[in-house]
């Protein structure tokens, strides 16, 4: 069953006086519990696809549906609420708030829920435990390595228990060892916790961990590749 449905999506940007088409009728599905890597050259529309799925951007036309909800029709306020419950987003440059500790950063999505302080702390501890950073609760981002920062941002993405985790080049700024740790973690989230994962990457090793690899070029889906034996 498709968790994410992209139907006949058109998206164009205006750059100065010129209109630049990113998609001209893109249609693609992402199954529930899938782990998909989106690959392609720069400017092929990978990150735009993530933004559309997360409701951070709107298609010029077409439908974006996640879990049955039509994201492309929601207003800003509905999107924010929906996003806090449904989506976990991980950025290439971690984007942790430097003035907050790891614990406080991870807690951010929970501030929007009705959970009390104790329950929030419990959930944060679990999320940081999943990413292996239980001993870094009080550390500020500047006191963490790049790999640890990215794991904190993954903990922030999963703490509200969303169905869908979107990652934009999560290993782009990490060394080989940290990349491995992050990828193993993603695989675990997909295998053990049945999270649906869509990851934009240029990294072939990252793509190898996915169950499916989609190749985009100039906004067109050029290849769908099922990865054999990637998991388990």
């Amino acid at each position, binding site marked *: 069953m498709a968790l994410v449905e992209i139907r006949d999506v058109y998206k164009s940007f205006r750059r100065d006086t010129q209109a630049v088409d990113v998609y001209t009728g893109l249609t693609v599905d992402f199954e529930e519990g899938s782990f998909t890597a989106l690959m392609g050259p720069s400017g092929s529309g990978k*990150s735009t696809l993530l*933004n559309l799925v*997360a409701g*951070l*951007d709107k298609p010029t036309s077409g439908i974006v549906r996640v879990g049955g909800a039509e994201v492309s029709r929601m207003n*800003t*306020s509905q999107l*924010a*609420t929906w*996003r*806090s*419950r449904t989506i976990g*987003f991980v*950025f*290439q*440059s971690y*984007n942790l*708030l*430097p*003035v*907050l500790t790891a614990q*406080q950063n991870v807690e*951010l*999505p929970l*501030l*929007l829920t009705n959970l009390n*302080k104790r329950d*929030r702390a419990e959930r944060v501890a679990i999320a940081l435990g999943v990413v292996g950073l239980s001993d870094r609760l009080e550390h500020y981002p500047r006191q963490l390595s790049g790999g640890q920062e990215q794991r904190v941002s993954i903990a*922030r993405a999963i703490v*509200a228990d969303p169905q869908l985790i979107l990652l*934009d*080049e999560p290993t782009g700024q990490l060394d080989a060892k940290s990349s491995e740790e992050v990828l193993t973690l993603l695989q675990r989230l997909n295998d053990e916790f049945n999270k649906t994962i869509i990851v934009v990457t240029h990294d072939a090793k990252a793509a190898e961990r996915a169950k499916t690899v989609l190749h985009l070029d100039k906004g067109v889906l050029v290849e769908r590749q099922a990865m054999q034996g990637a998991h388990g």
Partner: protein
Amino acid sequence: MKFFPLVLSNLMRHKLRTTLTILSIALALFLFASLRTVVTQLEISSQLGAANRMIVQNATAFIFPLPQSYATRLATIPHVTGVTWANWFGGKYGDGRKFFGPLAVDPASYLEIYKNDFLVQSDQKEAFLRERTAVIVGQGLLKAFGWKIGDNVTLQGTIYPGDWTFTIRGTYSLKETAYGDEQFLFHYDYLYERVKDNVSPGWFILRIDDPARSGVVAKSIDDSFRNSPAPTKTGTEQAFSAGFMTMFGNIQLLMGTIGMAVVFAILLIAANAMLMNQRERSSEVAVLKTVGFTDRTIFSLVIVEAAFMALTGAALGLGLAIILPKATHFNAFGFLPGFHVTSGTVMVGAGIALLLSVLSGFTPAYQAARMPVVQALRRVE
């Protein structure tokens, strides 16, 4: 409340900038409250005086004296039920840094006419009346110099040169603080005894039986002295106070204008600091939106941050404006006795602080709330 750590962390991000912004707001509110207090105090002073008291002064100018003999004639004017007089002595105590205005008064009649305003214990009053070198001082002055009843105090005369030693025999307290609790009242006879014909009353104070007759009484007095060597100008005590205050010019307008200019300047500084904060954090705002923060929540967080700075600054500034004059016994060299920040001024100051927080926070809050996430993220990625 659960967002408070986030607000606090953001405020602590640039500790120096936040501190300076808070201090600039504190300074603005301190100046505003102090300047407004000058205005309100002048207004209180200009309305000071009992309805049944009148002042007789030299028609040429307040600084010229009147003959002592007028006292007897004034007492015979219809509706006048009491006459006393006073003279500006102008001495200083110690190094003269602390200013106060000693007055030579006719003790018995002065305390009688002001018995409802200057409250003196009966035994102290008797001791004061008995002794020619005795003095009664306000409790504020007693405290300011650390004097005690029974102390001998020597003033250096400025208008009447020489050392003048007095014995403190009593203190007075006030019903109306604007009279000032730093007066120094001594026997006119003591002054006269030493300088003889070089002194005469500076002004007369009359008590009348019917305040509605003050106009008639004033005309009657001024008419009767019109052709004398020292013509008089008579008016109610309130008119005298108001006339005295007009000597400063339109100080209310000046102070009000300066106060508002200061507040406006600080508003710009606070708004600029808030805008800088927000501009630096556009990527973080985008992240917050990505995790699900609504535009409204983002807007509120920025406004709360601005309000926190404005209200903290206001609390510091207004607190200082309240405490400092009390601690230093400030009275503007005796011209603003009872100088204190009124609750009305505190309320206006708090209102300004609230307005400041809304005005300085609105633009950055609006910008943050309306910022497109993708655009902000693109700047980061």
